[in-house]
């Protein structure tokens, strides 16, 4: 047991872990060219193990295509560093006035590691485009999709029955929550292109809905990791009512609200069915009053853009105005709204909406580390001064 403790608290382990971290960042950066930042983060930093493969685009790929370099992922490295630091503290450091600065620095570092883990696990990012003069009460994640059945029969509200697309595995059946319906996935395409069959005749596997009326055909495509592209998630689903199958529909996030709703009827009830970007609804609406956009003279390069908004909360006491611009996000109800982009001839503003319960922790940890350094330096400085006085 003593050996284990010695191993985990050794400074040598710290050095080794930090060196591997350097390698992880290096190889992650190499792969970012191929997979984009989002996928690389998942692959390298939000994982326990990762293996770097020799890129196909590099010279001599034919001879070296087998080359793999396995290494620990971000979670494992971060976790080990955390254990290492805590173990070192418990075994080697004794709390004393003279070392209080070091303690503060280390505590800040531990907090930083923990906050990074919290952010990875708990933070949710999505986007909210709002047109000037209009309101929106939800944001969308363009990386995640959901299959929804919407019951619009009530006069006061709509009811959404949502199934994450991770449940749509071909051949399996899943119940639609709180409805008499279930869904059997016939085919699932993580990315596809929808087109019209030249004669409008072919309808693939669908027997009902838009695919039939519009003669749509599906061409599967490779998943894209590009920053500015989306995956057209598409599926053929068979919907089963209490008395048996109702038909097969084609659903896709490209068949959005521009198209007539696809409706499923069973008994005397009806639901709109759609596969869409995952939505996050809020108990408030953001109204965009005005979007302003200044460019450097004679160029298309923006130097400032800002959105004037009113937040209409269902609780009218919380209704307020705000101005959102670069580096000046709006923090509201545990969410942060960043000015991310704009579109539609400057009439649509796009906000990045981030829910990160641990957003304050990095600030606290940096503050602690700064304070620790100041204390430690101060202590040494005072000692030095005293010594000098003693010698003089």
């Amino acid at each position, binding site marked *: 047991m003593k050996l284990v403790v010695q191993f985990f608290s050794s400074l040598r382990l710290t050095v080794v872990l930090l060196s591997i971290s350097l390698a992880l960042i290096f190889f992650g950066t190499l792969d970012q060219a191929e997979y984009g930042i989002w996928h690389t983060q998942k692959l390298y930093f939000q994982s326990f193990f990762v293996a770097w493969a020799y890129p196909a685009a590099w010279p001599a790929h034919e001879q070296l295509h087998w080359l793999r370099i396995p290494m620990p992922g971000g979670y494992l490295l971060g976790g080990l560093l955390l254990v290492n630091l805590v173990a070192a503290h418990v*075994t080697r450091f004794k709390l004393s006035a003279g070392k209080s600065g070091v303690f503060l620095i280390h505590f800040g570092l531990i907090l930083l590691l923990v906050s990074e883990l919290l952010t990875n696990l708990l933070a949710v990012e999505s986007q909210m485009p709002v047109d000037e003069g209009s309101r929106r009460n939800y944001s969308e994640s363009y990386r995640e999709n959901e299959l929804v059945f919407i019951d619009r029969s009530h006069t006061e509200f709509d009811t959404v029955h949502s199934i994450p697309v991770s449940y749509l595995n071909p051949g399996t059946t899943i119940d639609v929550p709180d409805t008499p319906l279930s869904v059997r996935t016939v085919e699932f395409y993580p990315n596809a292109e929808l087109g019209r069959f030249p004669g409008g005749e072919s309808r693939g596997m669908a027997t009902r809905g838009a695919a039939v009326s519009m003669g749509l055909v599906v061409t599967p495509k490779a998943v894209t990791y590009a920053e500015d592209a989306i995956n057209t998630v598409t599926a053929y689903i068979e919907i089963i009512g209490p008395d048996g199958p109702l038909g097969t529909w084609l659903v896709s996030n490209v068949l959005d609200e*521009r198209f007539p709703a696809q409706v499923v009827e069973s008994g005397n009830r009806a639901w709109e069915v759609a596969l869409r970007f995952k939505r996050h609804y809020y108990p408030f609406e953001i109204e965009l009053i005005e979007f302003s956009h200044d460019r450097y003279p004679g160029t298309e390069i923006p130097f400032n853009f800002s959105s004037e908004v009113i937040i209409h909360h269902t609780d009218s006491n919380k209704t307020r105005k705000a101005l959102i611009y670069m580096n000046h996000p709006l923090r509201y109800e545990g969410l942060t709204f960043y000015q991310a982009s704009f579109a539609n001839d400057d009439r649509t503003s796009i906000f990045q909406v981030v829910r990160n319960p641990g957003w304050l922790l990095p600030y606290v940890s940096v503050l602690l580390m700064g304070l620790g350094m100041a204390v430690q330096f101060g202590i040494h400085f005072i000692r030095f001064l005293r010594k000098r006085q003693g010698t003089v």
Partner: protein
Amino acid sequence: MGPPGKCIPIRLLTLTVGVVVFIQAGCERAEPRTYRIPKEERAAGNQAPQRMAEPVPSPGEASSSDGMPILPGMQREAERAENLVYTVPDGWEEFPAQGVRQANFRITEEDGSAEVTVLAFPGEVGGPLANVNRWAGQLGLGSITAERLEEISQRHTISGEDALWVRLEGEDERIVGAILPFGEGTWFFKMQGDEATLRDHEGTMKAFLDSVRLEDRARN
């Protein structure tokens, strides 16, 4: 190592187990669920085509994480687009075509303004009735039946092809426009704006449509 040292492995173990449990909890995938939302108008999404299809400019760092979708089918139709030729009427201010917007104009007058857009989409996009209803939704009008559509529409020829000319009157705003099935897609010519402006420019809109020449590359 003194007595306190003995409990260190236990502390370490607890910490490790804690971290693992925490990660497990976080990695759990989202579950199917049911939730209520305030009543929403489906037509509220009618701004989507323009928004979705327009390439988002890149304002430095801020939008690097911004993945606004350019829908593949739509963009392809726009790129494949037939040659569009037209004459810009006097008093119309033209803006560059973007995404599925093949042409963009703005009319500004003392007592109001209007916007003219020319859009092209693949397929029938739900047919004339659904699209006229989409426009009706933009004016806050109730849904329009097939019989009512007969009353508010007439045939109009654009570039030698049969199109549907529609006039819709909302409380403050009006829409006049034409829906033209052409080749493998559908073209939408729409003028939307204040009542007074549309009254003055309805004739101009028809003259504009008469000047439109489309060439289907797929046919040649």
